[in-house]
């Protein structure tokens, strides 16, 4: 299963290294990771997505929680969570209509168009990983030159 983990950690140097090292040494995989400071500058929030069966995910959560630098570790229920990822696509323009087509596609997914050049265009898209994957599939025939993705950021809904 795909799991979103939310970690509140000490905002100190070396913590990201320790967290990622834990995944490596325990033979778990990181699907995506995003890190940023919280409203309290003493803490950072890490959002990690990973794959594993229920037992593995439970074990990851326990091992992360055992780390002294983690204040709080949550396995988020994706149905009760707002989660988004920022992606930027650079797409090839070969035909005269491509620019317009890509614009339409970007609009359909709530994306924004940037840096329109003669032979390429950039699309910024903030969405769920599934939506980004769907956009990528539709954009692929035009020719994707580059993609940059931030990884998921997530917060549980209030009362969830």
């Amino acid at each position, binding site marked *: 299963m795909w799991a979103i983990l939310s970690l509140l950690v000490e905002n100190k140097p*070396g913590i990201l290294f320790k967290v990622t090292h834990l995944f490596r040494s325990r033979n778990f995989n990181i699907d995506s990771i995003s890190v940023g400071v919280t409203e309290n500058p003493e803490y950072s929030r890490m959002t990690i997505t990973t794959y594993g069966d229920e037992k593995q995910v*439970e074990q990851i959560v326990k091992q992360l929680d055992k780390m002294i630098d983690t204040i709080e570790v949550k396995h988020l*229920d994706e149905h009760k969570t707002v989660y988004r990822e920022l992606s930027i696509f650079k797409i090839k323009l070969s035909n005269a209509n491509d620019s317009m087509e890509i614009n339409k596609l970007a609009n359909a997914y709530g994306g924004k168009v940037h840096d329109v050049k003669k032979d390429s265009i950039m699309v910024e898209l903030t969405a769920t990983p599934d939506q980004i994957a769907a956009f990528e599939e539709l954009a692929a025939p035009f020719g994707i030159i580059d993609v940059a993705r931030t990884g998921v950021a997530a917060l549980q809904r209030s009362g969830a």
Partner: protein
Amino acid sequence: MILCFSAQITYHIKIMATDLENKMETMIGAKALMKALEKEGVKEVFGLPGGANLPMYDEFARCDIRHILTRHEQSAAHMADGFGRVSRKPGVCFATSGPGATNILTGIATAQADSAPMVAVTGQVPVAMIGRDAFQESDIIGMANPVVKYAFQPRDAKEIPEVVRKGFFIAETGRPGPVLIDIPKDVQQNEAEMVFPDEFKIRGYHPWTDPDMVNIEKAITMLLSAEKPVILAGGGTIISSAFAELQALAELLMIPVVTTFKGKGAFPENHPLALGPIGMHGHAEANKIMTEADCVLAIGTRFSDRSVGTFEEFEKRLKIIHMDVDPAEIGKNQTTSVAVVGDVRASLRIMVKMLMQKAVKQTEENIWIKHVKETKTYWQENLKLHPGEMGAAKILRKLRELLPHQSIVTTEVGQHQMWASLFFDVIQPGTFFSSTGLGTMGWGFPAAIGAKVAKPDVAVVDIAGDGSFAMTENSLATAVLEDIPVIVFVLNNFTLGMVAQWQRTFYDRRMIGVDQGKYCPDYVKLAESYGAQGIRAESMDELDRAIKSALSSDVATVIDIPIDPEEDVLPFVAPGTSLGDMVLPS
């Protein structure tokens, strides 16, 4: 599933300090370190000096802490480890930067694998030099991260008192482990206004949980309804000193007790309910009963592969009740029916109390316990032993006969270690220690030295093999010069015996890289060259005299006991198989 662990815990630790001492004082970082160590009650430090820790070493001239010089930093770490396991307070070792620090890594990893409390203090190049590949610079924080409970690198001298306080607290609470404090040289040298704190915060550390009454109740119900229950006592039983509680529970319910190898001696091995360690080289009766049981109360164990064989086989047959202080151990290697998280001694105490309130007491010998006792008697009478006069079983039983029960025994790693598991009965709980998790050859001798420093009034014996002893034999210098008279009991087969056994068993007798050479070195002469006593024992009479001489000697003694290089450790459960597939001596 939402798992949520949230904790914002502040620990209020009162340390014995007068108001006067609490006032700010200006001093250099190195002095603050030594003062902080003194406040933790540290009397001895094991270590070796070098360029980057000279400021700390200079402070030994001005404090009451004894420095015990080792010949290799790895041995310093093992000594601190042995000290820590015996005293249950963190042992302290010092090393310099670069190779000094990397040399202690094996010792730190060994302590981590066996949950031993330790505080290792390394020197580091000055802050401004970090990251420039300076002379004797190593990123020891990065290297040690996976094998420490926590690591600190104070960048300002004034952090040192609090770092030491936190370091000791982390090392000795919850599931104990090694803590590394890496101090850049300028941080040792810089002056600062030092405050030695009574209180400190570690927000993400919550080593204590309240006893889990609901699950203890469930565990009791499960144990009482089991037909063939077994208690499996692991190393956590020893770490938490739950000896009396374990014995009370076993006797109250008449449940046989097996142990892991690390849990060896959690329960007196001469007790009628004791079956000894299970595992790859477990006692035949213990493995046998383990495979027949229907319910196991596992106390302070991680279900290591060496103990339980194949995991799937183990959990298929059994209802598992798992008690552990570390919540991450629950479900890591085995799926459990009931989990009781918390200090195992506290949990066992509550369990015994609840049983006594319910007035549960098993007095009649039921069918299961009769069967257990018959199985035990059968294997004690029928396990085939080496026929020679100097077989491992005879040698170790002789040692047991002559060694007072309160003596501390450590082992090296290899065949002798497994023979000790099989043939050396631990009578007084908590007197047997070994590198069981990492399996570090060379651990036993320096650990014995550390143990002797912690408990100078009892005899300390390192049951060794020639291969393992060779790895840290230069600790003889420490034992002699620092007047720490331990006994090294070498079962010498002139071979890396365990590897040789596997080559005989699994590699068609192709013996590669195992020959240690006959008397290379001659351990009697080697011991004498260090000023220790060296005795060779080639017969039971000589062995008897040698052990008596060693016990009455006031210098360290090496007893060299030549044995048959072809003797195997049996029974044997091959890796990847289950306890039921035990190979017996033919």
